[in-house]
């Protein structure tokens, strides 16, 4: 698993509630990413981080925020969950040794009811 852990692995939440997903790495990678995966859309980048407190938007960032207060952890927050945010969320890490290839976590299945 390349030293990357996502929590929780599964979550059901109600519309309008805030939700935070956590990604933890032990590999000291500089870059961390949050993707969502939906049928017919593949993997779409939500936000990514290129260092502590350095983050940027991806292609589907609306309704999401992120924080990275230390190298190991990258948090994804759904400020007010909507049914359209029901998805599988993947965290990824990259950058060690200057390599671009990303290593993925096992995913978090989020259901918004």
């Amino acid at each position: 698993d390349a030293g990357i852990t996502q929590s929780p692995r599964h979550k059901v939440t109600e519309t309008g509630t805030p939700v935070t997903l956590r990604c933890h790495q032990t590999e000291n990678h500089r870059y961390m990413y949050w993707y969502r995966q939906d049928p017919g859309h593949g993997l779409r980048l939500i936000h990514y981080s290129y260092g502590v407190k350095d983050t940027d938007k991806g292609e589907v960032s609306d309704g999401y925020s992120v924080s990275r207060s230390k190298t190991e952890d990258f948090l994804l927050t759904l400020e007010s969950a909507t049914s359209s945010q029901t998805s599988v969320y993947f965290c990824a890490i990259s950058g060690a040794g200057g390599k671009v290839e990303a290593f993925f976590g096992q995913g978090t299945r989020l259901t918004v009811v």
Partner: protein
Amino acid sequence: GESVGLHLPTLSVQEGDNSIINCAYSNSASDYFIWYKQESGKGPQFIIDIRSNMDKRQGQRVTVLLNKTVKHLSLQIAATQPGDSAVYFCAENADSSYKLIFGSGTRLLVRP
């Protein structure tokens, strides 16, 4: 805008045959490409990568071909095995940004 796509959503092959999965990309500035394999219930796993200064790269039973003229990428799997059944994604990176843009994926089914 930048995009990465796949020609075939599902590919069915006989065990032992070779498989070819195709991918088209639109960003001529992309200079690094990766193929990932995703098994059911798991995150994508790195298979092989290639830089734009190469046309071909070989791994164990896999070969990636890059045709920059027509912005086309392919993954060849030799002697396809049941364990190769999965969804395969191509991904591209441009401008050394460390952002990977993924295609929508191709499902490979291996018939016994």
